[in-house]
C-alpha cells in the first residue's frame, strides 16, 4: 500500500492546550513502563511521554513468540551494527523474566511489530483521540504514516519516512524491529540505501490510538538520555508538528509543564501511579502475559 499524503485540510486542527499533556516520570522498570503506556491509551486528551528505563531490556511485540528472540534473523541487519553497548542506566531490575537472546529483562508491549532492545535508544509514547481532527480515519497505515512524517520533520532533512508498500506477512519471521521494513520506518541514507533509524508501533482502542516509538540516537544526532532537557524539547517539537499547533501556542519549546510524578495525575478516583502498580501486578509483571 502506498502511503497516502496527509490531507492538508486537517493541518490546523483546533486543539486546546489543556488537552495536551507531557509526561516524564523518570526511570521505571520495563513492566512499569509498558503498564503506563497501556494506561495512557485510556486517558482522555493527548499525551506525549518520554520513556526512561531503569535497566536495559527487550520489549516484544504484542503477538511475538517469546522464544523467537533466541534465533537470529536470516536477513542481514540493515544497520550492520552489533547489539549496542548498554548505556549505564540506574540498575534496579524488578522483572526477573529474561530474554533468551540477550539475558536482559523482557516485557511484552500492547503494540504490534518486532522486538526492540532498549538501552541507548530514545523511547517515546504518544496517545490521543482517533478518529479525530488529527487522524480523520482510524486506518493503521495512514495513522502510522502521519506519525512518521511528523516525527521525521522534527529530526531534520536527513531522516525520511521509508514509504513504499506494506510487507507485513513477509516480515513476521524476522524478530528484531530494526531488521524489519515497514512504510512508516524512519530511515536515513548513508549512500548505500536506507538504514532504519526509528521504528513505530501502534495500538488502537475505540476512539484512541497509542504510538510507541524507538529511535536510535546514534543515527539521529540525539543527545544521550542524561540530557533530559534536550529530550523534552525534542518531544515538544514533535507535539507541535503532530498537532499542527500555531507558533504562538503555549507549547512553544520548554514553556509548558511536564508531569514528573504519576501520583499528581488523577485517574479513575485514584492516581496513575497506583494504577500502574496494579497493572504491573495483574498483567505486565506476569509471566503469563510476557511469555507466549
Amino acid at each position, binding site marked *: 500500500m502506498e502511503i497516502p499524503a496527509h490531507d492538508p485540510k486537517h493541518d490546523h486542527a483546533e486543539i486546546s492546550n489543556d488537552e495536551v499533556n507531557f509526561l516524564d516520570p523518570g526511570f521505571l522498570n520495563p513492566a512499569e513502563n509498558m503498564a503506563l503506556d497501556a494506561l495512557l491509551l485510556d486517558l482522555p486528551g493527548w499525551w506525549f511521554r518520554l520513556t526512561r528505563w531503569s535497566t536495559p531490556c527487550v520489549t516484544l511485540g504484542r503477538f511475538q513468540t517469546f522464544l523467537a528472540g533466541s534465533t537470529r534473523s536470516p536477513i542481514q541487519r540493515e544497520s550492520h551494527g552489533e547489539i549496542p553497548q548498554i548505556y549505564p542506566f540506574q540498575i534496579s531490575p524488578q522483572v526477573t523474566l529474561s530474554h533468551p537472546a540477550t539475558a536482559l529483562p523482557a516485557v511484552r508491549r500492547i503494540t504490534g511489530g518486532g522486538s526492540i532492545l532498549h538501552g541507548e535508544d530514545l523511547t517515546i509514547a504518544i496517545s490521543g483521540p482517533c478518529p479525530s481532527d488529527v487522524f480523520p480515519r482510524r486506518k493503521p497505515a495512514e495513522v502510522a504514516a502521519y506519525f512518521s512524517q511528523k516525527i521525521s520533520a522534527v529530526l531534520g532533512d536527513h531522516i525520511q519516512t521509508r514509504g513504499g508498500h*506494506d510487507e507485513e506477512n513477509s516480515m513476521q519471521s524476522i524478530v528484531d524491529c530494526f531488521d524489519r521494513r515497514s512504510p*512508516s520506518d524512519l530511515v536515513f541514507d548513508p549512500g548505500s540505501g536506507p538504514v532504519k533509524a526509528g521504528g513505530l508501533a501502534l495500538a488502537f482502542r475505540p476512539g484512541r490510538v497509542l504510538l510507541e516509538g524507538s529511535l536510535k540516537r546514534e543515527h539521529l544526532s540525539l543527545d544521550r538520555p542524561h540530557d533530559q532537557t534536550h529530550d523534552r524539547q525534542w518531544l515538544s517539537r514533535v507535539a507541535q508538528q503532530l498537532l499542527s499547533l500555531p507558533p504562538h501556542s503555549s507549547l512553544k519549546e520548554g514553556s509548558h509543564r511536564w508531569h514528573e510524578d504519576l501520583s499528581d495525575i488523577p485517574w479513575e478516583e485514584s492516581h496513575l501511579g497506583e494504577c500502574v502498580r496494579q497493572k504491573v501486578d495483574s498483567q505486565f509483571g506476569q509471566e503469563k502475559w510476557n511469555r507466549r
Partner: protein
Amino acid sequence: MSEVPQNRNYLSSHEWAMPEDDHVVVGITEFAASELGELVYIELPEIGSEVHFDQQFGEIESVKAVSALNSPLNGTVVEINSALVESQEAISETPYDDGWMMKIKPAEDSAMDQLLSPQDYESQLSE
C-alpha cells in the same frame, strides 16, 4: 462503498452480529477489514468465556498496529473460527462469510436492537 449486508446488525466500531439458530455469529465488516490492511495475527476468546456488549473480546494485528475487537452482545462464546488463527485471509476476502470470528449464546439481557441497523451503519460509513 463497502458492502453492508441487510441480514445483520452492527456496532459503530465495525463489528457485525447475525442471529443463526440459537446463537449469534460475530465478525468485522468489510470496511473494517479494508481499513486494517494486511492482517498478521488474531487472538480470539476461549470457548466458554463470557463476552460483554461493546467490550473487548479479542485483538487483531495489522501493519504493526494492534486493534481491539468489541463484542456486539452480552453472552457466552460457544464456538470460535480457529482457522483464522493460522490464516487471516478470510477476514479480508470474505468478512461476512468464512471470516466470521466467534459464535455466542446471547445472555438474557442481550438485545440486537441496541445495535445499529444496516441503514444506520451505512449512514455512519457515508459520514
